[in-house]
């Protein structure tokens, strides 16, 4: 698979790759200086949703398990962030929120794994996680005193700040970017670790992994917990950027976003999520802009377009945009070759 070769990190990174990576990071450190606020916000969203996508990829790409309740953790992170920062808008309360969401995600992930992994079936797991997600959203919608119900919960402080770290949008951009880099390294280390290897073995052939003596249940539980923690943390940082929490972040819409991000980037590639996040966020932004300038009623339903795109991807490019691009290229080359032989005949 083309995308896997390009994005694989099975081998040790060599020098040209490292240089390219350093150059890329430098570019992303410099360009925000020339950006408007709206662009800064979009870039920050891309970075954070990339981490969210990776958290999903750990689960789906590396264990083959489809969790339709991933948004529970992401949304809880957003709510936790807004609630804590509403008490006091600084780094210490952010750290407390981080500790809380970390603990909550570990516990939540563990409970979820107990319910879902027991049967082992993908069907039952998907149905149950969907139901869990909807129920959490339902509770959040009714628990108005804490979550603000359907109106949502805005961050009261008008300034973008996490003192003493930063007090501007530009600072928030760097914060999100560093978050992305740190989480990428952490998750990459997890995937490359012996545990991650076992997870890949489970994805390829669970029975064989079990016969080799691995407690597959335990490894899947670990994957689920790591994934929920990463999703929860990305939600928390997202709260700093969007400064608003509503039940949408807990709903199937955001689970679908994660699915779409991994689908665009190609599942099981980890880095693909960055590309996927950029694409998905850009499309949604584009639709919003279009809505503002054209005012068409239909543009008020971005999921209509995003969802259609998602269906098309599942049907025609299950390997992701990049994978699909390589498939298309191969097909084209094959066709040209065969045409060439035809004409010589």
């Amino acid at each position, binding site marked *: 698979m083309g995308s896997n070769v390009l994005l694989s990190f099975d081998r040790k990174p060599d020098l040209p790759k490292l240089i390219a990576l350093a150059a890329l990071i430098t570019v992303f450190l410099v360009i925000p200086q020339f950006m408007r606020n709206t662009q800064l916000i979009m870039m920050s969203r891309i970075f954070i949703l990339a981490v969210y996508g990776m958290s999903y990829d750990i689960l789906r790409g590396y264990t*083959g398990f*489809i969790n*339709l309740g991933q948004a529970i953790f992401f949304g809880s992170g957003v709510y936790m962030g807004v609630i804590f920062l509403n008490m006091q808008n600084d780094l210490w309360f952010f750290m407390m929120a981080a500790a809380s969401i970390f603990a909550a995600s570990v516990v939540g992930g563990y409970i979820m794994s*107990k*319910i*879902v992994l*027991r*049967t*082992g*079936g*993908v*069907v*039952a797991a*998907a*149905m*149950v996680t*969907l*139901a*869990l997600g*909807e*129920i959490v959203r*339902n*509770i959040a919608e*009714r628990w108005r005193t804490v979550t603000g119900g359907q109106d949502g919960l805005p961050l009261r402080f008008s300034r973008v700040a996490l003192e003493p770290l930063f007090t501007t949008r530009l600072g928030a951009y760097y914060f999100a970017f560093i978050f992305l880099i740190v989480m990428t390294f952490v998750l990459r280390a997890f995937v490359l670790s012996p545990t991650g290897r076992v997870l890949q073995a489970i994805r390829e052939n669970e029975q064989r992994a079990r016969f080799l003596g691995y407690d597959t249940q335990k490894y899947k539980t670990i994957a689920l917990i790591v994934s929920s923690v990463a999703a929860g943390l990305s939600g928390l940082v997202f709260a700093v950027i969007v400064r608003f929490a509503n039940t949408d972040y807990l709903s*199937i*819409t955001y689970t*679908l976003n994660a*699915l779409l991000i991994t*689908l665009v980037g190609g599942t099981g590639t980890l880095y693909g999520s960055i590309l996927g996040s950029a694409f998905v966020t850009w499309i949604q932004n584009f639709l919003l802009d279009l809505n503002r300038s054209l005012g068409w*009623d*239909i543009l008020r*339903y971005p*999921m*209509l377009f995003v*969802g*259609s795109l*998602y*269906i098309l991807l*599942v*049907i025609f490019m*299950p390997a992701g945009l990049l994978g699909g691009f390589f498939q298309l290229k191969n097909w084209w080359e094959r066709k040209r070759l065969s045409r060439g032989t035809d004409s010589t005949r």
Partner: protein
Amino acid sequence: MGTIVTLVVNGLAQGALIFLMASGLSIILGMMGVINFAHGTLFLWGGYMYVWSYYAIRLRVVMAWFETAVPVTRFGNILTIQGVQLPPGETLPFLAELVIFIAALLVAVGFVFVMGLVFEKLFINRVYGRVPAQILITLGIQVVFTDIVRVIWGPNPFPIDRPPFLNGVSVVGTARIVHYNVFLILVGLVIAVIIHRILTKSRIGMVIRAGLQSPDHVRAIGINIKRYFTIVFAAGAALAGLGGALYMPLVGNVVSTAGMNNQILAFIVVVVGGLGSFMGSFLGSIFLGLMGVGIAMTVPGLSVVANVLIMALVLMFRPNGLFGLAVSRAD
């Protein structure tokens, strides 16, 4: 005593409604090994199509019948739903109301049946035997087609009326029996018997059961099993559509989130009853309906989480369903 009778009737009516939804889901899962996450959307389309066609037909009939009738409030967006005010003291004859009701049901069920055919041909066809792809693709369909409903009929909820001849309440002793609930129970029973007959006695059922065990043999004796699969999927969709059509007058309030909510109820039934088992989904629906009413009566605060709690417990301790009826192929 009276309260208990009322509650049991309510619970059974809820159960009958859930059954219409869950049976289609369960048949598709058990017979074809396809999990349909778009079932709630089919339910929603059935509901909206029923409401729209019922009001559209009734408006025209009433306007033709009484010259002094006035159209009243309208809801909707691209397509609108408009009620009509009869002249004081006048009613439509029972037969006319009945024909309108049945016609609207037929429009709804027929439309959703066709939707099922199209979905199967366009999407499901490509993903037989690949469960993850089924989940992903039907989930996408769910989201897109729910939003299409919002585009066509607007995102806001609106109230509707029941057909007048089903709108009454009888008081038997101290029990209050809502006529519409009795009607739902009857429909549920009739449908259950029909499905059971088809699955066990008819040629279609035979072919499908054979196809489940050994598709190659069935194909070898010259039966186009693909066409049967298409019909089964569309029939399951039509059941969901019927469920949606009957659901809207029950709650009297048309909301676009009803599809997802009822889909989750159906999922819970399918898990509790045992994946892919028709009998299981029948028993599970009754169980869930009665339990829902009982909990809403005793501990209303728990009603949101109770269903999911039941499902979680069943999955943890009885993965083959409460009645141990799961069909192994579904996994």
